């Protein structure tokens, strides 16, 4: 591969020097370099572009939060005891800078955001960002383990189901994944606790600490995430199985397993990856909240609910910020992975 890349460069040099615009040869060689696994300059430029775009998205989301909260609520009144006088409210507003003109507040808000300063939690008194970041390891453990289970268990199930569409195995897998997908998480969690914690006593009923606490909540979450993933995997593999290149691979006398591993897997991976990352982003940014409540896990999702209930604006803003950043990061990682798998795909 190294040799080939060098050849491309030589070719380039031969065809290039008289023209200033990139020649077809140069474009082809860039594509070839990308295809052969070499990260060329255009990939780096593209990735940087994605990151800049991501940050812009975070700023837009945060600005929306700023204007919506400033125009629809009166935090000082909420923070003071009921029956406080207008003077007291005005004094607090002045102290919090809430009586400044809106554009000035916005400027402060943006500048604070760039310094990762979201103020202190009204409820806990600690820096809001710290409150949020403290909750992340718990959620990352839960979602990470659920994702791992989905990939190790449900993706292979989807592949197996796709091998013989309509067979008993296929119908069992489809039934299982649809059940997992549509069963309410609180019910599923309660059932798992009943069987594996109460009856069999294999796992603790709730709480957090060591990894053993993570198993039941992660399995609960994995049924939802994995159910969808198994379905997407099945469909994607079936799609590929009908394509001419698979018939050609079979005509070459290759075994089914080899064809799946070397030919179909990579082609089928794009939709699977997309759904997996979408589900992961969703779970991290709050969709795992039911599981967190059922198993008393002090995660990110629960913090979002709690801080909204408490009208803890600094924490809400920090939650939205962290959520937006996480979604951007997951999207960029997914795009990079997609591009590695599918070199033809240009930025979306």
């Amino acid at each position, binding site marked *: 591969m190294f040799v080939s890349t060098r050849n*491309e460069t030589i070719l380039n040099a031969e065809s290039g020097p008289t023209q200033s615009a990139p020649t077809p040869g140069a474009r082809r060689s860039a594509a070839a370099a990308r*295809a052969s696994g070499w990260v060329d300059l255009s990939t780096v430029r593209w990735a940087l572009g994605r990151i800049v775009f991501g940050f812009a998205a975070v700023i837009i989301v945060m600005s929306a939060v700023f204007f919506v909260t400033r125009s629809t609520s009166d935090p000082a009144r909420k923070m003071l005891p009921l029956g406080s006088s207008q003077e007291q409210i005005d004094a607090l507003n002045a102290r919090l800078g809430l009586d400044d003109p809106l554009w000035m507040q916005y400027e402060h808000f943006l500048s604070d955001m760039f310094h990762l300063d979201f103020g202190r939690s009204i409820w806990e008194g600690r820096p809001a960002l710290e409150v949020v970041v403290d909750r992340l390891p718990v959620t990352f453990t839960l979602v990470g383990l659920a994702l791992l289970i989905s990939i190790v268990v449900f993706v292979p199930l989807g592949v197996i189901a796709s091998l013989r569409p309509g067979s008993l195995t296929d119908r069992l897998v489809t039934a299982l994944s649809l059940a997992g997908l549509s069963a309410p998480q609180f019910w599923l969690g309660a059932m798992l606790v009943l069987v594996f914690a109460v009856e069999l006593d294999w796992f603790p009923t709730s709480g957090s600490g060591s990894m053993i606490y993570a198993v039941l909540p992660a399995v609960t979450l994995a049924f939802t995430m994995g159910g969808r993933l198994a379905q997407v995997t099945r469909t994607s593999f079936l799609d590929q199985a009908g394509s*001419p*290149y698979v018939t050609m691979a*079979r*005509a*070459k*006398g*290759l075994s089914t397993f080899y064809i799946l591993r070397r030919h179909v897997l990579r082609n089928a991976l794009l939709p699977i990856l997309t759904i997996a990352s979408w589900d992961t982003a969703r779970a991290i940014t709050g969709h795992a909240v039911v599981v967190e409540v059922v198993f008393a896990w002090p995660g990110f999702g629960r913090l979002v609910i709690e801080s909204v209930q408490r009208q803890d604006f600094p924490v809400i803003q920090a939650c939205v910020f962290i959520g937006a950043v996480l979604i951007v990061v997951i999207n960029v990682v997914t795009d990079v992975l997609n591009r590695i798998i599918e070199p033809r795909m240009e930025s979306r």
Partner: protein
Amino acid sequence: MDETQSGEFAPTSVPRTEVLLQVDHLEVSFEQPAGRPAVRGVKDVSFSIAAGETLGLVGESGCGKTMSALAVMGLLPAGAAVTGGAIMWRGTAVDARQIRRLRGRSIAMIPQDAMTALNPLLSVQRQLTEVMKIHHGMGRAAARARAIELLELVRIDEPRRVAVQHPWQLSGGMAQRVVIAMALAAEPDLLVADEPTTALDVTVQSEILALLQMLQADLGLSLIMITHDLGVVAHLAHRTAVMYAGRIVETGPTKRLFHEPAHPYTRGLIASTPHPFRVEATKGIPGQAPLALLDDPACSFRSRCEKRTEVCETRPELKSYRHIDHEAACHHAG
């Protein structure tokens, strides 16, 4: 494609010393919703091909050429199955499992659309070498060297550059050459080419046909050339089988079949094939080929046939016509 260009019309028959593949009364059916009778796609298809011979399989689109080829390769799609007949390889009947062992070793396929037959995400080189590595236990370096050789053999310029390219970087003609190289990688005895030039433009078509003819002669391969284009068959097939509505209606040495066509359908096909040096309008066959009427007790062609009489209400068997090797299924032949 024409007599003037090659100087000779159809290659002369090769001595049929060793029969490689023989297909006897092959029947392919499609699964039908419960209650309805099985629709048959192909019935009573028999042909044989000797070592070093090219057999042309011609017929209108939908007549069952691809299904016959896929049945021989054991590659019928889901819902289709071989429901009758026998396939014999070098004189012994082979079942599905044995056919699987022949694939990619003794029998190779060149599909209709080369571009989609290549895996879009793997380099040309990887798709070329996997067969060598798996079937012949070749090492990386040896397989790569052989891949370059094969690309040269199929007349690709700059084989080293093309080897590291991906299918989407190839033109249609190049992709077809790569697929031919892929088929040759297995060092097969028999190549099954299913309309290998249909997806290409005319100039590239004749290049690919010339290449196939050259390879067939130089490597002593047997070739089943499937096409709807009689011109292609006239140019390179030693023997020709004409299919109509799922059955073979005429078969014989290409020269005989063209000079003395016995079946009205074959005559119609010949008349409707455009000739590059004849300007007069070609005559088509009126009407449409019937589909899935295989259980019809009458001759399938009768509705479009000028010679139709009462006898056509019974199905004609394939029988010799003027020559032991030339057979036609028509009551009015000979």
